[in-house]
């Protein structure tokens, strides 16, 4: 049982990392959002599995939150937005897919190295999970860095949050406060982002962050 549970958790976490990679090479927003939905789905699954393993019922709640908000609500909403903004066909990457992937590999390796330093008596499950979570976080950050478009940056940010949730659930018996705060923050984040997008919409013709950057505090 132990071994199996471990393998499944491992599998789920690993596939989460994989999906993060998939995100990295989506250059169309539509596809990106879909992949993100998948990402959230996997997250929900792994959280649920953790709930089952640690038989911590409150984690199921987290799983549901993840499922509903991240896998369903947010992607659809973002779909709407990008359609309305008419940028759903936009192709935008700063760093080419190849280099991005290479960087991603490097990051995963790095997170492994860093995490496997952890002494073993912190139980292996947590250790593996943490390694994966860290790489998910880093990949999310990498994505934010390599994308030019506000929506995809938000997506990157949220996949980063997924990494956090993964880590949090991996941490055995972590009080509920964390998950709630995560969900809470993500919610707030999303609302604020929404507000901003609309505000920005009112003023600029695009949500391209560069357009924002054109209005610097100190133009010559």
């Amino acid at each position, binding site marked *: 049982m132990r071994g199996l549970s471990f393998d499944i958790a491992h599998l789920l976490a690993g596939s989460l990392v994989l999906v993060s990679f998939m995100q990295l090479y989506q250059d169309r927003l539509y596809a990106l959002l879909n992949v993100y939905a998948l990402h959230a789905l996997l997250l929900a699954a792994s959280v649920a599995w953790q709930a089952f393993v640690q038989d911590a019922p409150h984690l199921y709640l987290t799983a549901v939150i993840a499922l509903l908000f991240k896998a369903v609500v947010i992607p659809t909403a973002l779909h709407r937005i990008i359609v309305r903004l008419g940028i759903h066909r936009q192709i935008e990457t700063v760093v080419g897919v190849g280099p991005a992937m290479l960087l991603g590999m490097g990051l995963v390796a790095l997170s492994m190295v860093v995490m496997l330093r952890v002494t073993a008596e912190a139980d292996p499950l947590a250790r593996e999970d943490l390694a994966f979570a860290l790489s998910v976080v880093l990949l999310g*950050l990498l994505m934010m860095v390599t994308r030019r478009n506000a929506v995809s*940056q938000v997506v990157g940010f949220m996949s980063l949050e997924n990494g956090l949730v993964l880590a949090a659930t991996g941490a055995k018996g972590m009080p509920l406060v964390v998950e709630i705060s995560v969900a809470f923050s993500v919610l707030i984040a999303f609302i604020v982002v929404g507000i901003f997008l609309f505000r920005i919409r009112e003023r600029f013709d695009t949500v391209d962050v560069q357009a924002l950057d054109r209005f610097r505090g100190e133009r010559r």
Partner: protein
Amino acid sequence: MMVEYTLYGVAALLILGPIAVAFGTSPRGNGVVYGASLIVSLTLCIMALLTLLDHAVVPGVTLPLGLPWLGARFRIDALSAFFLVVVNLGGAASSLFALGYGRREHSPERVLPFYPAYLAAMNLVMLSDDAFSFLVSWEFMSLTSWGLVIAHHRDPENLRAGYVYLLMAGFGTMALLLAFGLLAGADGNYGFDAIRGSHPSANLAALVLVLAIVGAGSKAGVVPLHAWLPLAHPAAPSHVSALMSGVMTKVAVYGFVRIAFDLLGSPAWWWSMVVLAVGGITAIMGVLYALMQHDLKRLLAFHTVENIGIIYIGLGLALAFKAHDMPVAAALALTAGLLHVFNHSVFKSLLFFGAGAVLNATGERDMEHLGGLIHRMPQTAFVFLVGCVAISALPPLNGFVSEWLTFQAILLSPQLPSWGLKFLVPAVGALLALSAALAAACFVKAFGVTFLGRPRTPAAADAVETDSNSLAAMFFLGALCLVAGILPGIFIDALAPVTRTLVGTNMPHQVGLDWLTVVPIAESRSSYNGLLVFIFVTMSGSIAAFAIHRLASDKLRRGPAWDCGYPDLSPATQYTASSFAQPIRRVYGTTLFRAREIGEMPPPGATTPARLTVDLRDLIWDAAYAPIGAFVNFAAERLNVLQFLTIRRYLTLVFGALVLLLLVLAIWQ
């Protein structure tokens, strides 16, 4: 009790500041503030004098201020007593001067509040007995004087002067801070007594000394840290210029003496090499710079640089003798330096007052626009002349005495064992002699062009004699110059306790030698008697006058000056300051200042005037200061890009930082 009383005086001065603010622009503020500060500084001066003269040890005072676990410690020993005398004498004189001068100040609300605080700060530096309160007072002094420098802030030149000044002051303070940091150690024993107790290792002491030279030197105006001085001193109102030049530079000297002679313990022989070299270069560079000026106040400021150099030469010799424990010689050299501190503070204040009086009467600082003032303001001219003679180190006035003592000290130096000094000291002596001669030349120019000849502008033509207060201040200082010149023994004896505390012994007791002669070592060696020389000169002069007037003719007729047959030469044909300096400029300036004379002569028949422009370059500024500014600009320009990045780039920075740190972790262990 002395310390307490002095602190009360300082407190009174500090309170005067807010009162001055309350007065604002009202004319009464002038009288009140300057009157009060005159009284206070006079009292402080007298008290300090008493402390200096009865060699009693005054108990220190610790107030619950400053660093909480240390408190603000105040103490007066012979050294600080002497400098307190200098400071408060200058303070009293300039307050008296300002009683008249300040009335014509057009923005008193920018001068009055800072002035007493400035005096108080200088007193506090002398009093403070721990590193923290020393530095606080030191920097407070710079701050208040900065406020005074930019009092006339509408002139961008003054603002720039203030800016440079404040930066240099901050630099100096930081240097001193590091020095004290080294002395105090990691656990921060900032009390001077604790510092005296801790005997730093040789390297540490060397580093501290260098920092002290840099820190105190940047305030004293030691070349090449002098750049701010000729900018800031003239910018301030004249009585403040007098204080800055005559007194504040002495405070800096005090800081150096305190560290090098007192806190650091026994010196290494090569320290004196550094100090001597610095002093010699400063002296000669200062006077050469001064010769190139035609702004009266700036010329005086550069002479301050020169005299600081002379003082440092004295101090350097004292260090050398102390290091090879020759206490008698050390006492002589130190006395020479300190006596020059006093003398310079007197005649430099006097000269700045004179410049201020001229400035008030004509609204001009540029000598090229002055001339013939001796007719319009005879008394100012006379007392200014006294100052000129004194600063040119001519007998029988006081400037000569201290330089004479310095020469005597140099003549003792062959007994020094170390080779470096054997070569350095004569060279420094030559520099000293050279700078003395050049100083005389420079003041012939300053006095001659400003006060003699014919007025070059209407402003100069209808100047009026300055007010009685200013004259009183100037005549007081002039008299002091004479007294210190003809009765130097008294002053030398007054310095005895200082030298005894710093180098262990003092010069032979002077007062009571027959005819009040000054005898540094032994009469067979050398002696000087200002009094007799003065009497001889006056006597023989008056005898000659009397004899001639009585026996030969005393008839006198006024006639036009000899004009080579060209009638009525315009005042423009007189020698100007720059043309007067031309021979010297050709001799020294061509290499040191890249001096070039560009003369454009119009073709025959053209009506355009011929003109000759002199182009000088301050190599020190070009070499030391300009590059720093350029670098800061460059760095600022380059880094400024970071203000204009896109969010994504900023995120990249964060990301980079994260990855970097993780890598560090991965590699660490």
